[in-house]
């Protein structure tokens, strides 16, 4: 077993674009759930909207990079309206069921064979990230960051991904400190009290749903860029639940919590994968196979989610006084 390799692989996960995508999508959830109290279980649907909106705009309509990004964002805004109109007046558990159902509807639609020409059905789409890599200002070559060596392409996608995460974190930080953010927190604590102050709760909830959803769709684009491919199987309910694990790990009502949570999530997954696979390869562990080791890690995620919720519901960075659910 090569511990150094496993360790540097795990450290590399901290800055990987996938981690950035998870962090950004979880940040959207933080705005939904942590600050507004909306139980959105359909963040995978928002990510799929972003990824497919971007990919289809590029491939089917030959849109340039920026236009494709705008299409993706417009798709997620439309999706947020569709979700919000029937459910934001209802109790939280209705919103959770409708959002999870809507996300699955999206996944079924992009998987169906009837739309193969547009969505690529189960095989997905690929080869749409050329416009993004054409903008790469870094000259060809390899870049050594100490624990990881990157190509110019890898460096570019990481720089962009984490810049987007940083900007969005800053936006959320500004938003939740603003009067607007205070209304959101008020809705989370006591919706009727806010309503009695003359605020339009429905409209505030809708705005929060849209902003968090836009973060989700940006995350969907970031998620597909390094692979330059999008596959419907990646946008199932599991993705949403992994995002929730990241969010609750870091702390739901915090700005940096989702980022820390996503980093920790991927470092732990990568470490356990490296160690388990290494141990199996070296013959230390004989009673499970490589795919079973993969499943063991997801069992761990499930158990971690339960334990977190029971013993530290405010997450690593959260403040117990600011619990969403009392």
């Amino acid at each position: 077993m090569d511990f150094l390799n496993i360790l540097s692989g795990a450290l590399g996960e901290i800055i990987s674009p996938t981690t950035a995508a998870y962090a950004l999508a979880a940040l959207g959830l933080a705005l939904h759930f942590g600050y507004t109290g909306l139980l959105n279980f359909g963040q995978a649907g928002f990510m799929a909207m972003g990824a497919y909106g971007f990919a289809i705009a590029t491939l089917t309509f030959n849109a340039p990079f920026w236009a494709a990004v705008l299409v993706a964002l417009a798709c997620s805004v439309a999706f947020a309206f569709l979700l919000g109109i029937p459910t934001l007046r209802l109790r939280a558990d209705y919103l959770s069921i409708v959002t999870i159902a809507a996300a699955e509807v999206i996944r079924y639609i992009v998987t169906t064979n009837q739309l193969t020409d547009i969505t690529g059905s189960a095989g997905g789409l690929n080869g749409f990230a050329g416009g993004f890599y054409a903008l790469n200002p870094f000259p060809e070559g390899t870049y050594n960051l100490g624990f990881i060596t990157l190509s110019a392409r890898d460096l570019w996608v990481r720089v962009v991904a984490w810049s987007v995460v940083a900007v969005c974190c800053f936006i959320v930080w500004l938003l939740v400190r603003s009067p607007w953010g205070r209304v959101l927190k008020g809705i989370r604590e006591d919706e009727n009290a806010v309503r009695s102050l003359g605020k339009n709760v429905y409209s505030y909830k809708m705005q929060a749903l849209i902003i968090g959803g836009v973060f989700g769709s940006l995350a969907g684009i970031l998620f597909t860029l390094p692979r330059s491919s999008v596959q419907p199987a990646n946008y199932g309910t599991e993705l949403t639940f992994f995002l929730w694990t990241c969010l609750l790990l870091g702390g739901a009502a915090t700005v940096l919590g989702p980022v820390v949570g996503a980093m920790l999530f991927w470092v732990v997954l990568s470490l356990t994968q490296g160690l388990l696979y290494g141990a199996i390869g070296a013959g230390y562990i004989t009673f499970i196979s490589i795919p079973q080791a993969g499943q063991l890690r997801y069992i761990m995620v499930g158990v971690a989610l339960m334990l977190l919720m029971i013993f530290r519901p405010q997450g690593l960075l959260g403040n117990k006084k600011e619990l969403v659910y009392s």
Partner: protein
Amino acid sequence: MGLLFALLAVFAALLLSAPAGQAQTMAAPLSTSTPAPSPAEPTGTPESFPNTISGVLRNAGQPVAGVTIRATGEGFSGEAVSSATGGWSIGVPVQGTYEVELDVSTLPEGVTLAEGAQNPRQVTFANTSNAGAIFPLGAGIVVQTQSFGELLVERMLAGLSFGLLLALASVGLSLIFGTTGLTNFAHGEMVTLGAVLMFFFSGLGMPVWLAAVLAVLGGGLSGYLQDSGLWKPLRRRGTGIIPMMIVSIGLALAARYTIQLFFGGSTRQLPGARSPQIELGSVSISQNTLISLVISTVVVLVVAFLLLKTRIGKATRAVADNPALASASGIDVDGVIRIVWTVGGVLAGLGGILWAYYRPGVTFNMGQQILLLIFAAVVLGGLGTVFGALVGSIIVGVFVEVSTIWLEADLKFVGALLIMIIVLLFRPQGILGRKERVG
């Protein structure tokens, strides 16, 4: 908390003791829906592909062996030769549409394709990892085309059967929601557990009825242990409804992958999964679907009788109505909730077995596939109302099946979910729900 791990361990031990013959299939490829940190997916040999197109060739009741069948599509092509039992199976890498062609020149002498049979024919996967392709054989046999009315009746009958098996799961979910307020995302895994236990017990050589009874009891036990080990302590701690909902998501993930750990990623069939078609006039329905229809109708009627006529049923409805008041009038609320969890487990387990025959096949994520339909049924009928869940399930089941007349099979769940969203727009409390519940 210790009890929680005990629960997982019991569950693991049950599955661990699966017959050794299954060990080889456990190394099935990782499900593609789990994003792995390393993008490198293992590329399998054709035999290890997760999806199969299969069928059985028979001529006048006799299996036809040695016939070549080719499948092409999705940038892949593979072929298979029918075995001595007439069965054939082609592994394919992705679910999608394939063109399946029977090589007529390899048919034995005197055997021909039935008149009007499509060859090559299109085969499309419908959210399961197996797709069937039937080539009717035999001279003189004419493939009949159905009238719309017959097709509609046939789909309605199948939908009724599907809806009633959904009702088994959704009545349990609705009872649990009514008495505890918990939206249980782990209910799908309770459905899977019933089917997996049935597969395990029948693998030990037990007769079908005994395996089914034991599997259903196992489902009840899982409900009982869940409540005693996890949910009751959480209620004692005063955990809120939303944290409990998220705990149930964690439990669902842990349970799903625990099942996959021991059961593997492949689809396996319960005994008697291939059943003959029964002709009722001009409408044909498979024998299993009909049996499932009868079993679930009887069970639903029994549950309704228990709820309406017995002391414990009345106590359950009282707790669902107002736990504090029920407690004040001397009802043992925790006892009632324990019974509700156990009954919910029994019903979900039975629903899982019937779902395994309906699909057909047992997989680790079969419960997850219908969890949202169960939710849709419960929301349609009205969250927390038992008879609403029954009505909602039948609507969802019939709608899913009837919609396949117009919709591609891989979109059949979409209609049901959209119906749920639309109903919420106009009647948020559901069909039988009371307005106050929506809050």
